[in-house]
């Protein structure tokens, strides 16, 4: 077969471009143990760092004695805040405009806080010595409840009050109490209150989204190597945003940015855990500067769960107003947000509560008001987006619970209540009451397809029968049908309103075509399992007609990749994917000129055809992209520079709004509290689909994280601020045994503003999955009077719900 005889379909298939379930190129390395993760990095003379951590949630640090620790053979240094202070590195800025102690500066604010950093020749010596660092603490009263914190006389952050004890202005405006961080308001308060007071029906509920943790299988870590001869710092780490880390390291350390090279090697899962900057990163850098040797720091699982990046902890008080036939007229929400000891949320600067104002969800709600109040407590700092785009999962959980609560109040079927309130297809682009412009959607089609696929009406008939049987004593099982229609907001974001620490949230791609028609592309993002090396090559393949197999993709090395803001918030495809398409189109534009020159026609007389430019009206006269690539390096073309490469920095005009319809059926044993997932159907609409195999894998994984969160996963504290779930014994991660099979489905509603119409998918299943599982549990108990109970729905809580409802006789 030559270029002439292949059919257009064969030529397109050979590219393995968009829409192809191309096998992943990453897997040849990973399946034989040849990944290269941070802990795999080994440098000559490398030292290991380990933290001494606080056993107390709130205490003064009276003294630190390192004498015995320094006697341990192999110990090189023990760093404390005193050692970091002269460098100005004992505190560091957080992503939320607050600052955080790198090492305890006079006090500790949460259990597990970093107090001292031991550096030794191997990890055993470091651990031995950490045990021998003597810290004298003076315990202080502990505040773990955010509502109490706002009333308490206990001042957590003395650095945020003036000499009279009054709260100083915060990064997000005035503060009304020393433990208050910010209040963020969106929408129209008075108008919403007026709607509520005049409504036929108002449903009111407190919806709590508990504290949990992203817990990727690989914990956080870094290796810092300061070369004193060249003055160049190389920092490997588990960074979801390597370029931003480079800028931050430069700003806080004073090392010129061109002398810092940040490398994110393979990353063993991120899920938001690896967006922020952590004390370990800073300490490994300082230790390398101090010792002149490379220093590795890798946290263990307990440290991971206790200190780096919790997620959620949102108390969402809601009111939803409707007419008596179910048309929603208004939504009100007041959220109390527990941020822990430092405000280390990962949110764009102007959004202290992330995109919580997407909480009107998939519904056409004319009037709405949202207030979020951030609070300091004696818990770990964070508030990261655990597999979601900046508080979108909180918002989705809130609205999807409120819809169910309203359905109960109206005595309506919750599927029908959703249907009559969906934003209609012809309303897009849709301006929401809380300030967003939804790009595209077709919710009714997705919803009807989902209900039909699961046989919704039949399920309700079966459920009604089961309730009768239960009441008649014939069964001890209850059937729950969980419904969710979610709308996400991802792809942050337009530079005009999205930045992190002042860095606009654009992203980038650089493509170089080699003379023989293969290519290398580099992006500002970094894969953590999403398969970027596979999928971004597919975008390029479709855009420029070179086979994906001939395109190498690189990310994560700031010395070579173009600047970008990284991978989180489902932003890689919406932002860097767009940059990839735009860079490819620049190449194609130049290729068109080269082709026209070679074919001796005017530029406008050739047209693009899968993998070539052909003369209009004479398709047998063409130049393939491969031929054009060689010509770019081989021919002196008048008016054109040699070479074929392009770079694009893409500033998205809007966010993208993926959506989906999920339905879960489960059976609850009221006597044991066990919930058996009978089926789970997930319809996702992520716009244009790049690799269906990878999309399906993302959905499976996200749903399993949702299962974990909804059904048992929790970071729990006792009243003394002790972490009760600090190991994988207590912190629930489902195994293959507890995890169900999922049915995946899709509709395709492209984003109108994205160059290839893609919206992003990785986080949808978590955003939609959590309310879906939770709604199923609630639904099972609805006939017995349950309106709202809190996640996670572990066996104990389900049993307790059954017991409280009098179902145990």
């Amino acid at each position, binding site marked *: 077969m030559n270029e002439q005889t292949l059919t257009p379909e064969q030529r397109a298939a050979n590219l393995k471009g968009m829409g192809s379930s191309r096998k992943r190129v990453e897997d040849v390395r990973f399946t034989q143990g040849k990944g290269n993760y941070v802990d795999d990095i080994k440098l000559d003379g490398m030292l290991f760092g380990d933290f001494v951590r606080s056993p107390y949630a709130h205490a003064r640090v009276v003294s630190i004695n390192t004498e015995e620790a320094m006697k341990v053979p192999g110990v090189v240094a023990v760093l404390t805040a005193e050692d970091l202070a002269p460098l100005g590195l004992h505190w560091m800025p957080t992503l939320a405009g607050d600052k955080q102690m790198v090492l305890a500066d006079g006090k500790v604010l949460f259990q597990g806080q970093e107090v001292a950093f031991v550096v030794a020749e191997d990890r055993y010596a470091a651990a031995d010595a950490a045990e021998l660092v003597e810290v004298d603490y003076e315990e202080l009263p502990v505040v773990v409840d955010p509502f109490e914190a706002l009333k308490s006389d206990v001042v957590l952050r003395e650095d945020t009050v003036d000499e009279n004890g009054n709260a100083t202005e915060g990064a997000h405006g005035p503060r009304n109490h020393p433990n208050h961080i910010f209040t963020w308001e969106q929408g129209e308060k008075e108008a919403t209150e007026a709607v509520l007071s005049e409504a036929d029906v108002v449903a009111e509920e407190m919806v709590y989204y508990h504290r949990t943790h992203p817990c990727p299988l690989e914990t956080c870590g870094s290796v810092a190597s300061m070369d004193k001869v060249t003055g160049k710092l190389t920092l490997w780490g588990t960074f979801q945003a390597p370029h931003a880390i480079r800028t931050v390291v430069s700003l806080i350390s004073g090392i010129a940015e061109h002398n810092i090279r940040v490398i994110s090697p393979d990353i063993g*899962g991120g899920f938001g855990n690896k967006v922020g900057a952590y004390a370990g990163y800073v300490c490994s850098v300082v230790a390398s500067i101090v010792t002149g040797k490379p220093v590795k720091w890798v946290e263990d699982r307990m440290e991971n769960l206790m200190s780096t990046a919790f997620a959620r902890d949102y108390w969402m008080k809601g009111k939803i107003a409707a007419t008596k036939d179910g048309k929603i007229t208004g939504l009100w929400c007041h959220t109390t947000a527990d941020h822990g000891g430092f405000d280390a949320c990962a949110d764009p600067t102007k959004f202290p509560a992330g995109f919580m104002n997407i909480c009107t969800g998939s519904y056409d709600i004319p009037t709405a008001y949202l207030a979020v109040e951030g609070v300091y407590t004696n818990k770990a700092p964070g508030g990261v987006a655990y597999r979601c785009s900046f508080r979108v999962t909180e918002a989705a959980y809130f609205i999807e619970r409120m819809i169910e609560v309203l359905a109960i109040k109206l005595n309506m079927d919750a599927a029908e209540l959703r249907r009559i309130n969906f934003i209609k297809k012809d309303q897009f682009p849709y301006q929401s009451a809380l300030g967003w412009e939804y790009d595209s959607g077709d919710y009714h089609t997705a919803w009807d397809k989902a209900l039909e696929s699961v046989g919704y009406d039949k399920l309700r008939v079966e459920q009604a029968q089961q309730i009768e049987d239960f009441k008649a004593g014939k069964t001890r099982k209850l059937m729950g049908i969980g419904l969710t229609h979610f709308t996400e907001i991802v792809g942050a974001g337009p530079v005009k309103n999205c930045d992190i620490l002042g860095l606009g949230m654009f992203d980038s791609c650089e493509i170089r075509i080699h003379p023989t028609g293969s290519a290398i592309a580099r992006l500002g993002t970094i894969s953590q399992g999403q398969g970027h090396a596979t999928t971004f090559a597919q975008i390029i393949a479709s855009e420029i007609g070179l086979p994906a197999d001939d395109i190498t993709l690189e990310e994560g090395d700031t010395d070579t990749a173009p600047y970008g803001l990284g991978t989180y918030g489902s932003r890689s495809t919406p932002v860097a994917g767009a940059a990839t398409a735009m860079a490819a189109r620049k190449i194609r534009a130049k290729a068109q000129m080269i082709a026209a020159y070679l074919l001796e026609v005017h530029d406008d007389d050739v047209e693009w055809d899968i993998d070539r430019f052909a003369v209009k009206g004479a398709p047998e006269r063409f130049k393939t992209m491969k031929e054009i690539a060689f010509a770019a390096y081989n021919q002196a073309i008048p008016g054109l520079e040699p070479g074929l490469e392009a770079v694009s920095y893409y500033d998205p005009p809007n966010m993208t709004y993926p959506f989906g319809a999920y339905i879960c059926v489960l059976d609850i044993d009221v006597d044991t509290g066990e919930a058996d997932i009978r089926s789970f159907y997930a319809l996702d609409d992520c716009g244009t689909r790049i690799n269906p195999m990878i999309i399906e894998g993302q959905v499976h994984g996200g749903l399993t994280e949702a299962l974990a969160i909804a059904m048992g996963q929790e970071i729990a504290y006792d009243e003394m601020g002790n972490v009760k779930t600090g190991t994988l014994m207590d912190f629930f991660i489902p195994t293959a045994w507890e995890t169900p099979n999922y049915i995946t489905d899709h509709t395709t509603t492209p984003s109108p503003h994205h160059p290839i119409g893609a919206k992003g998918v990785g986080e949808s299943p978590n955003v939609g999955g959590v309310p879906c599982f939770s709604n199923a549990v609630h639904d099972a108990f609805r006939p017995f009077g349950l309106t709202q109970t809190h996640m996670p729905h572990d066996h104990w809580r389900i049993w307790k719900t059954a017991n409280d409802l009098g179902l145990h006789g």
Partner: protein
Amino acid sequence: MSKMHVKMNVNGKEVEGLAEPRTLLIHFLRENLNITGPHIGCETSHCGACTVDMDGKSVKSCTVFVAQAQGKDVTTVEGLVNEDGSLGVIQEMFREHHGLQCGFCTPGMITRAHRLLQENPNPTEEEIRFGMAGNLCRCTGYQNIVKSIAAAADTLNAQKEAAE
């Protein structure tokens, strides 16, 4: 702490080294021998990222002292590659059926699957799920891992049949 002379067979090769008796097998493999396929995910035996095969049994090498591995036969994911360097059947099936994403749990998964299929060459889906329950994955939701292992079982059985 004084060091002991450690000898064992890893992936078919006799290896030796000096290590404190308390050294964990995972650290000996990764740091002394540069075998970095097995990973550390929890250090408490829960996650299974460190799973290796020791004398024909799956063990979590984060909770085995190197002294306990003295003289033993150890197989890691690196040892499951075919002699010509191509992927072994289980490795190939994980690739084929998208049984991995970030790749961090994968070496432990594949090494455990290798032993599971020795113990039970024809597992049902339920038996695969039960047999793999000591290995956690945060990315895949297991559905494609189960599919990969079932496909590997079929391929291995077909190969065995063809050879007989």
